[in-house]
């Protein structure tokens, strides 16, 4: 664990990724200090290009784009990390339980996992979100968490199956350690890199999907988030009237966050698995993101 952290600090990609992430997090936390404008209110003339007052211009209804950008980062980060946490937690618990317990438990969980995997994620999310109506970011995070864990469960299960055969697990069993302790204290620590990659992949997936759902008009249009920014800019025909700042700002923000997270993931992969440095778990990463995003 310590080696992983030390290794990350020596890795250029990790540092760049961390720096990007840090910039976004600091901007999100310090939003009230960085701007005096309320992101939800009309504070200027409509569709003004970037100027000294409004650094990134204004939207069609006169909201300040810069303040929406940094306040919106709060939503994107919160949904991303919140949903990412749920997805990873459910996937990891399911995966370890299936892999370690075996038998009926494994059969049941694997059946459920495969089922969730083959039902395409995006249309299901769309149906869910459209029935719920205008889904708030919290609701979106919960829906994402509940429907997207299957891929992580499958990967964790496979890895657990191989760790289960190791001597230290057998030894712990002979010592009479209870099952939950073996799963939590013996098996889980050996899954850290897989869980980490799963987590970051899930965060990216959640950020992308939240923005997509909101862009398609399934979110709460009053919320301040990057997806809603895109949605309102698109609705205001920002491209047609040449208000590039309105629509390219959230685009840039999403690319920035995506790049930061993927660099970080690339680096965790390189550091945690020197043998896999050639890219084994990169496929997992793509699988993770693609599992849902592939159908966007």
């Amino acid at each position, binding site marked *: 664990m310590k080696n992983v952290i030390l290794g990350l600090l020596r890795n250029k*990609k990790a540092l760049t990724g961390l720096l990007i992430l840090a910039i976004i997090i600091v901007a999100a936390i310090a939003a009230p200090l960085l701007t005096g404008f309320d992101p939800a209110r009309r504070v200027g003339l409509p569709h003004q290009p970037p100027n000294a007052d409004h650094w990134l211009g204004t939207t069609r209804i006169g909201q300040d784009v810069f303040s929406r950008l940094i306040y919106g980062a709060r939503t994107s980060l919160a949904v991303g990390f919140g949903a990412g946490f749920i997805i990873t937690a459910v996937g990891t618990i399911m995966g370890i339980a299936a892999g370690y317990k075996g038998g009926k438990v494994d059969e049941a969980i694997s059946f459920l996992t*495969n*089922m969730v995997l*083959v*039902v*395409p994620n*995006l*249309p*299901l999310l*769309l*149906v*869910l979100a*459209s*029935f*719920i109506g205008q889904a708030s970011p919290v609701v979106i995070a919960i829906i994402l968490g509940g429907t997207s864990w299957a891929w992580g469960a499958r990967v964790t299960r496979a890895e657990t199956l191989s760790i289960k055969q190791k001597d230290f697990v057998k030894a712990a069993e002979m010592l009479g350690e209870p099952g939950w302790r073996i799963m939590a204290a013996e098996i889980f620590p050996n899954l850290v890199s897989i869980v980490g990659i799963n987590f970051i992949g899930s965060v*990216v997936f959640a950020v*992308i999907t939240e*923005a*997509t759902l909101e*862009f*398609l*008009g*399934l979110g709460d249009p009053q919320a301040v988030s990057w997806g809603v920014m*895109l949605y309102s800019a*698109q609705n205001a025909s920002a*491209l*047609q009237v*040449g208000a*590039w700042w309105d*629509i*390219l700002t959230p*685009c840039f923000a*999403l*690319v920035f966050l*995506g*790049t930061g*997270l*993927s*660099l970080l*993931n*690339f680096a965790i992969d390189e550091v945690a698995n020197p043998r896999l440095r*050639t*890219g*084994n778990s*990169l*496929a997992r*990463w*793509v699988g993770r*993101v*693609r599992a849902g*995003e*592939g*159908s*966007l």
Partner: protein
Amino acid sequence: MVFLLRRLCFYLAAFIAAATINFFLPRLLPGDPIQIMFSSAGSTLSPENLEALKLTFGFVDAPLWQQYLTYLASIFTGDLGLSIKYFPLSVNEVLGRALVWTVGLMGTATLISFTLGTMLGIVAAWRRGSKFDVIFSVSAIVATSVPAMVTSLVALYFFGFTLGWFPTGYAAAPALDPAFSFEYISSVIYHAILPIITLSIVLTGGFVVTMRNNMINLLGEDYITMGRAKGLSDRTVMFWYAARNALLPTVSGLAIAIGTVLGGSLVTEVVFNYPGLGNTLYHAILARDYPVIQGQLLIMTLAMLTANFIVDVSYVLLDPRLRRA
């Protein structure tokens, strides 16, 4: 055979599960499900049509399990009901019209990105650690982490609006009538170029990483060393020894990609206002046209399951061990 039969049963179960979600979702939510589903239908549908639609979705005056069976019966007879927004068209007709455009768009984009991504992946793996590898692997990873709508919007802004090289919407010039003429077909192609390029960018990253990963795992194998020891050229070893074997898992990935094709271009179609399935779904959502939304979920599920089944069959053909199991 037994293997395929078991898979077939599993897919049937998965399909019924998706249909079941469709059935229970409106009934689980607070409020009157009929009200939720058909509130937008009042102005367009006649009372008889509304009755027929309710029947399709199992809203009959009977216990829940009978409602469920009524619903399943209509699904399995291919009756997805009437569209509320596009009345008097049925859901099948609405989706059928849009399907052609989406298949054309995504088919081409998948083909391009598969070819390009696989080639880049082969070369990146062969020269792993080189500048080529670092640049393309990192950008492939980044490309998979950028939402499709961002790529689409940026492409539309620069090449559609700013430079004016490509049209900014529709599948063909609106003034032209669909006909098998040079004028119409060239207009269709012209309108498809930018969406196809955008989709290819979105899809290529995944193929690069998968292929690179498969290749690298194979490059350590003895038969690669053997090929080199025989004095074969790099090119021969790279393509005929390594890539040929690494391609197998990618081909099954391709089948899955085709399964997601139907939903694949959703965001891109919305941005480019392209009349495919994705755009239809989008407008159905805006109009709360639940019959179309649900029909889309079922059709995408069906496509995904079919693609998975094709992968299973191809595995049986390619891997003799599965035939005995």
